[in-house]
């Protein structure tokens, strides 16, 4: 079975040590993994290491064979592009991209293909990015704060889309601050702080061990800091 594995991963950006010897192993077995941590914990840096954007690190990184579908923590599609042109671009770029899947998700979310990205609200942009991310067939999906700007109704729709994307040969890693509202989708959680791994376990095990919801367990982990 493929795994996502980091061994003694350390990253220094300027004078700051962002990740400090992080060792983590996530088997690729169709699960959804929540990545939690306070601001500045190193979540985005860890994610960028996993998708290959950070090359200067010490330690080792192994990611599963096959492609990675990555959604950064900010809108990245150019404002002048129409939604239909984004579809065309992704279709031209990625062999694993399914236009029909994208169109189905657009229809469900109410994203109009004729509109320009610049005309969309922040939440609508997030929906568009998420739809494009999950219209590819990959072994590893990485989403950095995908649910920060959407209303509760749309959040539920997006959570359903993430749940439906779960497949036996893939893993979905979702970084988020909104734990309480989204914890139902997670199978595993990774909690980090100060560039170190605090907890990596199944949701069931965390709940059983602490007797708390994920959010409360996370707050308890963070409270001594």
């Amino acid at each position: 079975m493929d795994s996502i594995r980091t061994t003694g991963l350390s990253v220094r950006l300027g004078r700051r040590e962002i990740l400090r010897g992080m060792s983590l192993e996530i088997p690729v077995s169709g699960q959804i993994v929540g990545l939690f941590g306070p601001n500045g914990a190193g979540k985005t840096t860890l994610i960028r290491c996993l998708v290959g954007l950070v090359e200067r690190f010490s330690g080792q990184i192994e990611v599963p064979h096959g492609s990675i579908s990555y959604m950064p923590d900010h809108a990245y599609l150019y404002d002048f592009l129409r939604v239909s042109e984004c579809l065309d671009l992704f279709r031209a770029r990625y062999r694993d991209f399914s236009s029909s899947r994208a169109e189905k998700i657009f229809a469900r979310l109410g994203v109009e293909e004729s509109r320009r990205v610049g005309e969309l609200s922040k939440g609508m942009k997030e929906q568009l990015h998420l739809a494009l991310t999950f219209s590819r067939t990959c072994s590893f999906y990485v989403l950095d704060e995908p649910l920060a700007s959407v209303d509760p109704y749309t959040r539920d729709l997006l959570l359903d889309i993430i749940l439906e994307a779960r497949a036996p040969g893939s893993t979905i890693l979702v970084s988020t601050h909104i734990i309480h509202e989204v914890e139902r989708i997670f199978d595993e959680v990774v909690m980090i702080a100060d560039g170190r791994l605090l907890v990596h376990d199944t949701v069931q095990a965390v709940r059983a061990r602490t007797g708390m919801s994920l959010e409360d367990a996370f707050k308890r982990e963070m409270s001594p800091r």
Partner: protein
Amino acid sequence: MSADIVVQLRKYRPAFLGVALVLLVFGIPPLVWTHVEAVEIVGVLAQLLAWCFAVALAAYEVFRYLHHADDHLLLSSPLGARDGVLLRVIALGTWLAVLSLISLTLWRIAQWHDGFSVSIVEAAYYMGTRAISFVAFFAVTLVLSTYAKSIRQHSLALLAVVVTSLLVTAGLAMLSLAVTRLWHPDHIWALGIDTNFHGLNQYVLVLPIIFRPETLASISETVLPASLAVNTVIGLAAFAVWRGPIRKMRLNFV
């Protein structure tokens, strides 16, 4: 890859069409009111500024891609974060070539007005020197911008790239002059604007320089392959460095 290039071309369309418009608006009047000094000076100055803007924008956008690393649409291209910059370079180079075509057209009409005929070879040399100068310019910019990634502060890194670019350009200009004088010891050189010059500019990266005999009889006297060769060698060498030693550098796109 072609879809990405089209998107990059569209990204810069407003800026470069604006520059094209400036070239035309300030390039046409001197052709209508020929030898009116005020019109000529304003026209040449405006075109020079437009070119400076276009070149500075192109260099900054390469630097920004590598240093700020905030363009995730391009960073996530199937070419990878490092080679994604080539898509941007192709788009920016294409726009600079379009501007060169406009300049060539205006220049040919001006020469015709002044009784100088421009042959196909001379026109091809004009475009060829420009194209090679752009390749050399982008290759040097890629090398300098990549090395500047070791400086984390954006403004300091940009300053380092600008200063180094100026030093490299000055050094190459001297080299180009020295090489040209091996074949043409009597050639004189000039920088800047000369509205009475009826020859072809040479290029050191994107800096236009005039090398010419004291008395210029025809445009063909300014077709100087030695100067072209310097740009070609510099461009190839810089690109080789970028594809060679720089590939071994580990970069952070954050």
